[in-house]
């Protein structure tokens, strides 16, 4: 009926599992399924940006599903398990990793989840006793703007091949900081806009064997260099938007 590469089994099947042995077996497969659902959702959100004007209802429902999965994963402590390093990495790395996420490749997703959620994880560790997702989301949303601001300063390290990209990113973060209604609205409404060529970006990413800091940025700057400033802004707005969704939850 449906031919895709992802695993087909549904989550609802877990209710049928009985016995500890089966239960133990179910846990890793449940995590795997949950992860693939998360990846699928992120791809859907990213693809949303490709359409002429995506359905806001659909986007909101998918975003809520993503948030729900992340909350559950945090409660499970799965975040902690896969958290390797949460030291300050440039946010550009996080943006890069967000894109790799959207390739729906599980390994990369699991590996790259780390930098994006480093800060969020700190919150969780600080609030060990509190399980309520509300507290967590409040804490993280407070963290998010601060996180972004710190990223702006972190990125000021001069790197020649980041010129254009850097400036545009700064522009966007400044807009975010101002929190003027229009710009914030643009974040979500410009979910619709897309001159962003996912194919080009993915091809660019794929061709780089070493996914180092600079390489990732180089491939980023190639599509953006050709596009106009406003296109660049909207492209990054969307990436930011994804980060926002992930980070604030």
């Amino acid at each position: 009926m449906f031919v895709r590469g992802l695993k087909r089994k549904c989550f609802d099947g877990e209710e049928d599992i009985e016995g500890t042995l089966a239960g133990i077996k179910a846990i890793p497969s449940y995590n795997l399924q949950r992860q693939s659902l998360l990846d699928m959702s992120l791809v859907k959100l990213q693809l949303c940006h490709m359409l002429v004007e995506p359905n806001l209802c659909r986007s909101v429902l998918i975003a809520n599903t993503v948030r729900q999965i992340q909350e559950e994963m945090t409660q499970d402590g799965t975040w902690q398990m896969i958290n390797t390093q949460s030291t300050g990495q440039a946010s550009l790395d996080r943006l890069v990793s967000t894109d790799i996420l959207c390739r729906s490749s599980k390994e990369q997703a699991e590996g790259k989840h780390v930098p994006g959620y480093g800060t969020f994880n700190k919150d969780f560790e600080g609030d060990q006793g509190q399980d309520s997702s509300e507290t967590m989301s409040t804490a993280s949303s407070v963290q998010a703007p601060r996180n972004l601001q710190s990223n702006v300063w972190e990125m000021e390290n001069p790197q020649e091949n980041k010129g254009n990209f850097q400036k545009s990113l700064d522009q966007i973060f400044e807009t975010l900081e101002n929190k003027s209604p229009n710009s914030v609205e643009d974040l979500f409404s410009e979910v619709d806009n897309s001159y962003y060529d996912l194919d080009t970006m993915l091809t660019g990413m794929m061709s780089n064997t070493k996914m180092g800091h600079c390489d990732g940025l180089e491939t980023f700057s190639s599509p953006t260099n050709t596009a106009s400033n406003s296109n660049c802004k909207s492209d990054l707005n969307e990436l930011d938007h994804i980060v926002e969704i992930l980070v604030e939850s």
Partner: protein
Amino acid sequence: ADIISTVEFNYSGDLLATGDKGGRVVIFQREQESKCRPLSRGEYNVYSTFQSHEPEFDYLKSLEIEEKINKIRWLPQQNAAHFLLSTNDKTIKLWKISERDKRAEGYNLKDEDGRLRDPVRIKELRVPTLKPMDLMVEASPRRIFANAHTYHINSISVNSDYATYLSADDLRINLWHLEITNRSFNIVDIKPANMEELTEVITAAEFHPQQCNVFVYSSSKGTIRLCDMRSSALCDQHSKFFEEPEDPSSRSFFSEIISSISDVKFSHNGRYMMTRDYLSVKVWDLNMENRPVETYQVHEYLRSKLCSLYENDCIFDKFECCWNGLDSTIMTGSYNNFFRMFDRNTRRDTTLEASRESSKSRAILKPRKVCTGGKRKKDEISVDSLDFNKKILHTAWHPTENFIAVAATNNLYLFQDKVN
């Protein structure tokens, strides 16, 4: 572009309007009963076709605005002409459909073929006379209500005062007067100050059929809010809040998505309302907010397939639902060109199929059944064989008689109760 996107009977049931993805409106008219063709009563023939909306381009956002007709709503007939509202994502138009079966002949200043006559040659005056002509049905746009919605319009609803109507998009609901196009009042606004906090959108809205101050709107979280316009100008505070508590045993990652309400319809008597979510139809008593009075499973066999349906986006399909004239039966669509009817009194339900093979003219539809597991009986169809591209999203029931219109992608099917 021929995909039907909305179906609506008018108040008398004599006219049936359909809107499609290409922005066209096709109106069918019921054949009048006549002695020479007794069986022709009940047939609907094309009455008028016109292009309601054209594709537009929003230069500011560099986005195309689809011409697809999202909803058509008729106005009650007040004179010889018929009026309807049709809307795409951004603009609502009021159309006047009128008949012309006479034309004037014998003008003084021009010939029969329209050429101007030389005034010098006119020797005498005559009064033009009206002569019959072939019936011509004209549709003309009388009002255009534009630029009031930032987001996609999903519903329009004419008020029982027949002077105002509401239009709802994902985040806002506006109140219009039918005569005034340059102004509308915002009556509901659920847009958060920070768009990143957006978690809920408006999915449908409708005015109460009798109380002109009451309307409801449904949300993507499975809740319905009833608002009274007398209480405040901005109805962000609801008067009633309808939500069924979630069943913790059936919770999954898809719970919220399948609880999203795709359609809400008041009963004709105004005492109940019906909501359609992905797997079920619920009937609510307006006086009871904590749970629906009736719940009908449309295609429960899909619950185990939600993962796949999420992957292919079918889980986001918006099915509509409708009442019959007596509010005793409700109808909604499903996949594989199946549609379901639930009799509220007998609690019996039927599954029927709208397809060319099973719908020969005058043939009685055979009830269908979906096999949910185990041995498949003859004539049953298994869940895996269902065609998810053949979905019936739009259905309509004649206001007084047992006539139904079912839209299956780009085909319109009309069924009637057995005539003895």
